[in-house]
């Protein structure tokens, strides 16, 4: 494993055309239920990759595998040239995968600013002794954390004061705060689980602009979404899951015309 990891790192350094994320044969069983079977796909650096499918198709399960919440029952994935089979979530965050949650999971009783500051945890170092001594290095670090968190709040467009409790933000702003918190971990891959769910047309439009800005800033985006219009207009490539299997992949226009996809969505066919 270590040799492989080392090799992976070397490849990652020397070959930027290597996919950022590569899944091979991922399967996930829950008891007798197979939530994912043999899912393989790859995501290139700098693209916005969409993951769609009907309810219960396994999108969120796949997300949870990639972000380390679940351990796949079969297969493995490669992120940035390193192989992962078991993922502890904090290790994947360290490696550069950040996520948001389908049903918002902010630190509700902490302020917006603190939420984002917590995102900086993984890129900062101060420990107990730093906290107790509060030496120059720690003070500088704290200052930088707060500074960066403020920048990010501004970046995602949260207009409320930074000291507002997360639970007192509007729904749309809570979704944005989750994105800001995820961005605070300096991710290479930002994985968003239905970021537009429950948003109105205006909010969705500004979300789309935000996601484009994020991508232009060099962060690869993986997006689960139900809003087909958003997916079609935003994503470079799309994969479709149905019953835990990948049934199509490609540029949005092709995928849209794929008979298997139409079948899955319209619920016809027994081929």
């Amino acid at each position: 494993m270590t040799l492989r990891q080392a090799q992976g790192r070397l490849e990652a350094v020397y070959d930027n055309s290597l996919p950022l994320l590569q899944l091979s044969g991922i399967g996930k069983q829950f008891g007798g239920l197979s939530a994912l079977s043999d899912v393989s796909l790859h995501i290139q650096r700098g693209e916005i990759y969409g993951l769609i499918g009907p309810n219960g198709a396994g999108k969120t399960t796949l997300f949870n595998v990639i972000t380390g919440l679940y351990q796949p029952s079969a297969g493995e994935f490669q992120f940035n040239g390193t192989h992962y089979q078991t993922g502890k979530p904090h290790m994947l965050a360290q490696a550069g995968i950040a996520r948001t949650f389908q049903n918002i999971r902010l630190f509700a009783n902490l302020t917006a600013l603190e939420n984002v500051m917590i995102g900086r945890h993984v890129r900062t170092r101060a420990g107990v002794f730093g906290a107790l001594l509060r030496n120059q290095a720690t003070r500088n670090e704290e200052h930088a954390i707060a500074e960066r968190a403020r920048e990010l709040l501004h970046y995602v467009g949260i207009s409320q004061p930074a000291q507002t409790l997360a639970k007192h933000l509007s729904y749309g702003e809570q979704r944005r705060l989750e994105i800001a918190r995820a961005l605070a971990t300096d991710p290479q891959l930002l994985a968003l689980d239905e970021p537009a769910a429950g948003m109105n047309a205006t909010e969705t439009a500004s979300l789309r602009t935000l996601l484009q800005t994020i991508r232009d800033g060099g962060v690869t985006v993986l997006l689960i979404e139900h809003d087909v219009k958003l997916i079609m207009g935003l994503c470079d490539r799309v994969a479709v899951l149905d019953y835990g299997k990948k049934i199509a992949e490609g540029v949005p226009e092709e995928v849209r015309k794929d008979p298997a996809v139409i079948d899955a969505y319209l619920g016809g066919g027994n081929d």
Partner: protein
Amino acid sequence: MRSDKKSRILFAVLAIALLLLPFITDTLFGRGWVRIVDFAMLYIMLALGLNIVVGYAGLLDLGYIAFFAVGAYCYALTGSPHLALAFPLVFPDGVHLSFWIVLPLAALLAGGFGVLLGAPTLRLRGDYLAIVTLGFGEIIRIFLNNLNAPVNLTNGPQGISRIDAVNVAGAPLSVTQNILGISFPPVHLYFYLFLTFTALVIFVSHRLEKSRIGRAWMAIREDEIAASAMGINTRDLKLLAFAMGAMFGGASGALFAGFQGFVSPESFSLMESIMVLCMVVLGGMGNIIGVILGGVLLAVLPEVLRHSVVPMQQAMFGKIVVDPESLRMLLFGTALIVMMLYRPAGLLPSRVRRRELGSDEVAEKA
């Protein structure tokens, strides 16, 4: 700038009041009350330690008093003639280590026990964790109760007595000392010792709260899954919280043993754990000032009751109708129910205060 000056004056007034407190209490209420104040300080230290585990990291610990017990027995064994009973050949006079050597060892040992408790319970939360920690607390107490055979290590239910007093600069705190013509009786001396340690505990709590570590604890408290997805190593940080909390408990335990000169398992009952937890909850979880307030109230109120209820009943009925101890439980229960109904976040919830002060503080930093 003005508010800074104001808070400095406030701090100075508070410091002077605290320094004079034992003398004021002594003159107004008598020496017994100084002792009660000393105990209140111990409780505050305990409550602040538990606050790290419960208030910051959100891990419900019902066996916290076990760490207090570990610290207390640590000094009881290494600062008394007791071990001469168990090992007469090795320690003919018992062990008499200096308190200042034992204190850090007691804290470390208790911290080790904290990790020992934390490691197997990492996956548990809420009520499940509460039950396991409750069991842990009882196990420690029962061990202390029964470790008088085959080797008499703890002297069982009789406890260990004749524990050496704490020495400061060569002077034992157990005898009245004359400093600059003022005579300081032992309870006063211990008050200043405890005050110093309480200040230290407050300082450590405060620094931890406003740090990267403290934020990570609060993230775990708010949502453990989201915290781990943000790159927080929840396992390590939960263990750290258990260890830090336990260290505070262990240090207060050693202080307790030196102060009392006697320890026995009955000081470490489940009721004591619940009492400390109530101080944290009642005062306001996660808020240092709230927890201190909770500690003072719950440590002092029972004594006030004891001293007021008996004479009151005797005056009214000519005899004691309700025993103060049971009345204490009644009032305690009522107070908790009322609190849960009207101030579920505690007397001084951490957030409200933080929000009031927060904007200034951040503006100052920026």
